């Protein structure tokens, strides 16, 4: 093996968003040595973008709320293909994880009696999202960061992992390079936690930053772990659509939670036109009832704008396709209208939605207190990811754990807003604690030396190709393929075409060339990310072809209805012995009677 600089940690956490930070804190609390590797600087990960809030059944605003209702809401939102054990643990433990943040310095908005205030959000039966204005994610990541830096965690900023190293069927560490100098380093570890977030960069229109290239999913897959539910991608209904340079930037669901309405170019509130059967009893009968709901009337039902994200995104797509969209291919989201109902509405909007006010004013010359926004769907989140044990978050590869967006299970076919911030706290903590336990119980493994050599050799190849295609052009081509052919509305023939395009793109990636040297070279970094993007794109496409029904975030034009037979299993993806992707149907364990009862009671 080449003489790599080697760093030893008991637990290596890859990714420093909310899940990675929470995992690192939990592992450090157990007394083991912890290394935290992140692609960006600390505190810049995508958690910072989360706006609306963190879902936890604290019951501070409506005491009818409980973990049971939260559990039932999560299962309903996920269309019952969730890992029910994760949904159960998540609903039970989220309140304690939120309160713990307060003990570490987070400041949430308050109720009149001084407790944590909670707001309404799509698919949540009661006001459940602890929040601070519309910058909850920043409050959370900063709290975890500022607490974490005093816990003895070794932080390796701007390092990117190239490959996981294994020792037989056990994880043994990772090989990474630093962005600044391009040096390789071997991280030897007894346990590894993947907390790398999502895959948004596989699509052209996305709310995700450059970092979200499916690293964790791809690293796990190539190391022998199993992926599941990769067909379930969440297209957030409200991204900015104009001007072009901001297309995809998120507009928080909090706008609708505060009373914002969606209208088409005829001024019609089209969300009232198609209310799914399983949500009819929970949805307002008219605009007036919807408005009262947003203002805290406990007897009112939620407006249809707060139906689940998959449904709202599809409704917007329908309006645009049928010619009722806004000038730039979206629909209107109007919060300014509340001035008909509230005195001092402009001040109220600026106080409740300060970031949104700022964002539109500065990037689009729109004053949201006076005029409607133009919005449309944007790739936001992947429900699928690395298959884990619900209690420990361990994968099928011993010592390899996953938490947060890169793990699968909690959200099933569709994630409720606010459930990702609680997900990363609950399962970040669990993954970190169980990884520490694993590290205590096992000696350091012996990484296979050939794996590190091979990864380093492949990583340097783009420099040695005298001429070839640039990495950014290939990335844009892949994003176009996924956006056009495996996007919000899917068909067999289009996705089959996508697979053949992905194969062609793989050939182009094999010939990619980069200029310059190894020092802080974004062209090289992008070239190395392409492999991960290809892996997750193929997994998404194959899984989406396999699911011949429509459910949650996965909508098939050729199979527009839900098929109960597809509720019996998750689609899993693993690397076959011949190196090709293999798909399996993994039967969902029957839900225990007690939990079945909880769902039945929730109605």
């Amino acid at each position, binding site marked *: 093996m080449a003489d790599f600089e080697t760093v030893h940690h008991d637990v290596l956490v890859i990714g420093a968003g909310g899940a990675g930070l929470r995992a690192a804190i939990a592992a450090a609390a157990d007394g083991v040595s912890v290394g935290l590797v992140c692609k*960006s*600087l*600390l*505190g*810049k990960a*995508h958690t*910072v*973008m989360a706006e609306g809030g963190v879902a936890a059944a604290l019951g501070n605003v409506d005491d009818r709320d409980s973990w049971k209702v939260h559990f039932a809401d999560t299962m309903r939102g996920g269309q019952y293909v969730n890992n029910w054990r994760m949904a159960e643990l998540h609903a039970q433990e989220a309140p304690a994880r939120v309160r713990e943040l*307060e*003990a*570490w*310095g987070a*400041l*949430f*908005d*308050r109720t*009149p*009696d*001084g*407790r944590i*205030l909670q707001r309404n959000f799509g698919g949540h039966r009661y006001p459940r999202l602890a929040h*601070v204005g519309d*910058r909850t994610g*920043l*409050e959370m990541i*900063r709290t975890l960061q*500022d*607490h974490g*830096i005093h816990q003895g965690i070794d932080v390796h*900023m701007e390092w990117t992992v190239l490959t996981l190293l294994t020792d037989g069927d056990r994880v043994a560490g990772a090989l990474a390079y630093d962005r*600044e100098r391009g040096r390789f380093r071997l991280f030897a570890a007894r346990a590894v936690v993947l907390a790398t977030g999502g895959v948004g960069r596989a699509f052209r229109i996305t709310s995700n*930053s*450059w*970092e979200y290239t499916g690293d964790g999913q791809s690293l796990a897959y190539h190391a022998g772990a199993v992926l599941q539910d990769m067909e379930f991608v969440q297209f957030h209904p409200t991204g900015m659509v*104009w*001007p*072009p*340079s*901001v297309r995809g*930037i998120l507009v928080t669901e909090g706008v609708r939670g505060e009373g914002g309405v969606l209208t088409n170019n005829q001024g019609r509130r089209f969300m009232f036109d198609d209310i799914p059967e399983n949500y009819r009893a929970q949805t307002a009968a008219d605009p007036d009832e919807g408005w009262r709901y947003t203002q805290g009337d406990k007897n009112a039902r939620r407006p249809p704008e707060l139906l689940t994200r998959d449904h709202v995104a599809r409704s917007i797509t329908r309006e645009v396709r049928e010619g009722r969209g806004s000038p730039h291919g979206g629909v209107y989201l109007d919060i300014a209208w509340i001035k008909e109902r509230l005195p001092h509405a402009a001040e109220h909007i600026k106080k409740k939605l300060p*970031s949104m006010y*700022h*964002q539109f004013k*500065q*990037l*689009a010359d729109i004053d949201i207190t006076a005029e409607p926004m133009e919005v449309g769907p944007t790739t936001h989140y992947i429900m699928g990811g690395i298959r884990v044990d619900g209690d420990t978050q361990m994968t099928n590869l011993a010592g390899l754990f996953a938490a947060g967006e890169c793990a699968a299970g909690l959200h099933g076919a569709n994630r409720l807003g606010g459930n990702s911030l609680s997900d990363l706290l609950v399962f970040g903590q669990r993954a970190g604690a169980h990884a520490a336990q694993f590290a205590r119980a096992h000696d350091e493994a012996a990484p296979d030396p050939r794996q590190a050599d091979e990864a380093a050799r492949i990583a340097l190849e783009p420099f040695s190709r005298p001429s070839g295609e*640039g*990495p*950014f052009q290939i990335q*844009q081509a892949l994003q176009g393929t996924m956006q056009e052919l495996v996007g919000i509305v899917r068909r067999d023939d289009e996705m089959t075409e996508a697979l053949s395009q992905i194969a062609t793109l793989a050939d182009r990636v094999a010939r990619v060339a*980069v*200029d*310059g040297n190894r*020092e*802080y*070279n*974004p*062209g*090289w970094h*992008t070239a190395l990310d392409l492999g991960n993007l290809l892996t997750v794109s193929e997994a998404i496409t194959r899984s989406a072809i396999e699911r011949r029904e429509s459910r949650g975030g996965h909508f098939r034009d050729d199979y527009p209805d839900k098929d109960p037979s597809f509720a019996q299993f998750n689609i899993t993806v693993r690397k076959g012995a011949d190196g090709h992707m293999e798909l399996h149907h993994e039967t969902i364990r029957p839900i225990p009677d007690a939990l079945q009862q909880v769902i039945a009671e929730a109605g």
Partner: protein
Amino acid sequence: MTTPPTPGLSGVPSRAPASAPASSDSRTATFRVWRGDATGGAFHDYPTETSTGMVVLDAIHQIQADQANDLAVRWNCKAGKCGSCSAEINGKPRLMCMTRLSDLSLDAPVTVEPMRAFPLVKDLVTDLSWNYRVKKQITKFTPRPPDAPDGTWRIQQADVDRVQEFRKCIECYLCQDVCHVIREHHEQDTFIGPRFFVYAAALEMHPLDIADRIPALKREHGIGFCNITKCCTSVCPENITITDNAIIPLKERVVDEFYDPLGKLVKLFSRAHRG
């Protein structure tokens, strides 16, 4: 510390934009971008197409994709929330993602260079590690015991609102970049800079916090070096009133604790009394 020279000294000759504006919302503009590392560098001119709504970061990305794959730049959210893409645009410290081209004159080249108060890594990327070391030196959040038996606290919204301004900080470090104590006087060893006065203010004014950071602010953190020129406030992309709302109140607390003669007398007596 390596800082790139100013444009006038080493800017390479401009390559004239190739084409005239195609339409009212699309034209070619030139971006004069600093390229180099700790050993030196120069400005390079890149003509690129611009269109409606574009921000400086879009132009940099376009240049990176089409003309200079290895142009180093940090960015993440592209929505003014993560504070990664700080740079000096036409000499002003700003976020590239929130600087619209429509707010700049495109008749002359737009200068884009790294933050000059920090050591250069490459192109637009600087070494910010000093900031991370400084933060660790500040006494961490230390809450009073919980108010309720279930381990929770009761806090009034007004008390939350009071510190919101400071907690909005996205750690872009533009305030550090513009601060003359850091930029010109290089007092990094004895002065923590505006960002960390804001951080300290957020903790000192946190409704639950009971630690006392005032002695450290005076002795180790150098708050006395700040002579309230308000440069930091003027560049803050979050519009935090850094000087008036964070630094001056902290300075007042330092005065109250160390320089108030009446207070000193009271302390002396109470100590004598206890002794």
